């Protein structure tokens, strides 16, 4: 293994701060703002503006915000990084074939063919950087005898000289002075530093047998990297058949029915392209760009798979729901003009499945006739009118059940939230009637004053109850409470401080009331 010149020279192209660049490309972040991508609650990547303000990798969000108050923090999203990198890979492939994606933001190529085609390694590296520059991206490239060494070479290149070539046979010498943390394995690095081994050169000097017995297979791999002999081969990827479809409208179209009509051939092509690959689309992402450059994006799920009509329906719904400020409320009719003409429409298959598996058998045993009937109803009444309940956690009864449009998957985390204990939950039996919006009621004490709950949780005795304004007041025959709810005082959007009363009125109706500072609402009725 030590005499392994079998691994050929490699070219690695590295895009610094890729998660940040991907967020900018996806339109979730504007240029030139202090921004950070958070990974597991810590700053993973931050922009140059944030770095100037003193934000560094590994800070907690709170501390980063105290150093840079206008910091925009975005959660890390591997899917976004990979999706945006796809276009970059395609661009590089156009000038240098045989790209191996190591991870989003980092790709490797075999150096030999490229160098022979372009004449010199400098020119080959220049071609890769030029491909990136055409997309408006900043990149660094490095040549060396192994993938790891080439990656380090690319990372050591600077903005003014973005290409670094380590001549053949000098990779080990190039790697030797680098710190041990360059291996990218914090556990191993911390152990080695405590053993007094601070550079890759020190580590490479250890005997192979000792490294194997002390550090196992991972240590052996790291040792090979440090010696400049990365056993990872460069495996050129098979360029994927493009399954997404884009249509540009010139001039832009501003009526839903026009767009739906123009979309039909594209949707047919989209579904046919997937079918030829033996795939069925179960989740579709629709991106709509209007002439003001504004992009709306939405993911649509499907319990079976998208047919041509379904694709057109989803785009239509997205267009109809796009603009809340339209005269007919938040749902526009098909003939109505949109706020801005649509210039580009993009259909991306977000999740696909083997067509054979999706033919007859269905998720969770939903039978085809049922699904078809409900979808027909959905296209008659609108996407949000046929609902499917999913248990979700929460303190208020109305938020404990999430109503999902038919065919949508619940967002991640809902199932976990439903499992949590939720202290303060009301005792069984639960009320059958849960008002979607709490109804304003009155709860009065014997002096006909609204019942008040003080800071210590003492309340006056409820004596009268009026279910809604304009109704006769009824005597309260039984009551229990106040049961306090205190929720997320640190979060202004979800903070809630209220008290619950269970009451039984003179007509035999039982109610669950929710009140704060003398105002009372009926949350639910027991009936």
């Amino acid at each position, binding site marked *: 293994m030590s005499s392994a010149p079998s691994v050929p020279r490699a070219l690695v192209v590295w895009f610094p701060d890729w998660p940040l660049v991907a967020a900018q490309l996806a339109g979730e972040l504007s240029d030139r703002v202090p921004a950070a991508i958070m990974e597991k609650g810590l700053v993973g990547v931050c922009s140059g503006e944030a770095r100037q303000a003193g934000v560094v990798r590994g800070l907690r969000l709170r501390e980063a915000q105290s150093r840079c108050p206008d910091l925009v923090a975005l959660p890390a999203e591997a899917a976004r990084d990979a999706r945006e990198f796809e276009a970059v890979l395609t661009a590089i492939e156009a000038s240098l074939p045989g790209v191996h994606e190591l991870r989003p933001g980092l790709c490797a190529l075999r150096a030999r063919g490229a160098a022979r085609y372009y004449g010199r390694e400098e020119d080959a590296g220049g071609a890769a950087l030029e491909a990136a520059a055409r997309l408006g991206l900043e990149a660094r490239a490095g040549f060396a005898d192994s993938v790891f060494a080439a990656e380090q070479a690319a990372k050591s290149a600077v903005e003014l000289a973005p290409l670094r070539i380590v001549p053949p046979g000098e990779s080990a010498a190039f790697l030797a002075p680098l710190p041990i943390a360059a291996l990218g394995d914090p556990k191993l690095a911390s152990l080695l530093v405590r053993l007094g081994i601070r550079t890759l050169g020190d580590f490479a000097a250890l005997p192979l047998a000792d490294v194997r017995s002390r550090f196992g297979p991972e240590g052996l791999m790291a040792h090979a990297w440090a010696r400049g002999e990365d056993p990872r081969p460069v495996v050129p990827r098979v360029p994927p058949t493009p399954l997404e479809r884009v249509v540009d409208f010139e001039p832009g179209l501003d009526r839903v029915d026009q767009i739906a009509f123009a979309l039909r051939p594209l949707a047919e092509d989209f579904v046919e392209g997937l079918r030829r690959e033996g795939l069925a689309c179960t989740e579709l992402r629709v991106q709509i760009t209007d002439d003001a450059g504004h992009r709306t994006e939405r993911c649509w799920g499907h319990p079976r798979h998208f047919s041509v009509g379904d694709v057109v329906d989803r785009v239509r719904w997205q267009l109809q729901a796009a603009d809340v400020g339209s005269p007919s409320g938040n749902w526009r009719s098909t003939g109505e003009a949109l706020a801005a003409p649509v210039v580009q429409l993009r259909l991306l298959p977000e999740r696909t499945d083997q067509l054979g598996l999706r033919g007859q058998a269905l998720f969770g045993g939903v039978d085809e006739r049922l699904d078809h009937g409900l979808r027909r109803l959905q296209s008659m009444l609108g996407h949000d009118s*046929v609902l499917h309940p999913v248990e979700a956690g929460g303190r208020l009864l109305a938020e404990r059940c999430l109503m999902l449009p038919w065919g949508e998957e619940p967002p991640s985390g809902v199932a976990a939230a439903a499992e949590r204990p939720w*202290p303060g939950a009301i005792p*069984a*039996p639960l009320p*059958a009637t849960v008002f979607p919006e709490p109804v304003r009621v009155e709860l009065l004490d014997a002096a006909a004053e609204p019942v008040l709950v003080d800071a210590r949780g003492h309340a006056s005795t409820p004596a009268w109850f009026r279910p809604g304004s304009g109704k006769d007041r009824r005597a309260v025959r*039984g009551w229990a409470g106040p049961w306090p709810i205190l929720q997320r005082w640190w979060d202004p959007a979800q903070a809630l401080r209220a008290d619950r009363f269970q009451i*039984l009125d003179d007509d035999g109706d039982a109610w669950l009331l929710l009140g704060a500072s003398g105002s009372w609402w009926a949350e639910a009725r*027991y*009936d």
Partner: protein
Amino acid sequence: MSLPLSSASAASAADQLRELQERIHLLQGRRNKEGMYPLLPCFSPLLPSGLRAGSAYSLEAPLSVAMALLAGASAEGEWCGVAGIPEFGAEAAAGFGISLERLVLVPDLGERWLVTLSALADVLPLVLLRAPARASGGDASRLASRLRERGCTLIVLGTWPQSEGVIRVEAARWDGLGEGHGHLRSHPMQLAYSNRGRKRTAVVDLASLRSGTGSAGR
């Protein structure tokens, strides 16, 4: 009589006869297969054999009774639909034993409620409906043939012009809530089922049917 029928032609004659009988039943308004949807055991004094598939029941009772009526069939694996009831407490329904995976809600039936309801009746075996204010006898009879054809049982909150029977609450009370202590625990109610002049009654405690999904927090 001199020529005995061969066994094969006798069998085909029997098939034909059965088919004809089924068609007569269909025309007479009875389903060809007498389908029944099961109910929870506490309803057996009212409806011993369950809910008849393809008919409508009128319910002059609160929503929880309707949930309890759906629960038996839902637990047996049937899909249920709830139409026109935006305040349907799905969590309480789950407590009765209604499977949320097999529950579909259409909170607003829209302008053409009859079309929506027929579309639901086409695909769902049990539909709970809040009676629209403008339901006429004509609408109901048009829907009734659709229900019979599809074997869909309709449970209507409110009065319904052509119902198989009416379930009514005769008396109900809540127990367990005192003056500033306790909480609602039991809800015994006396239910009556009347069907063409016959009437059966039963006392049911709906609260005891709800296995506590929300564990007692206090």
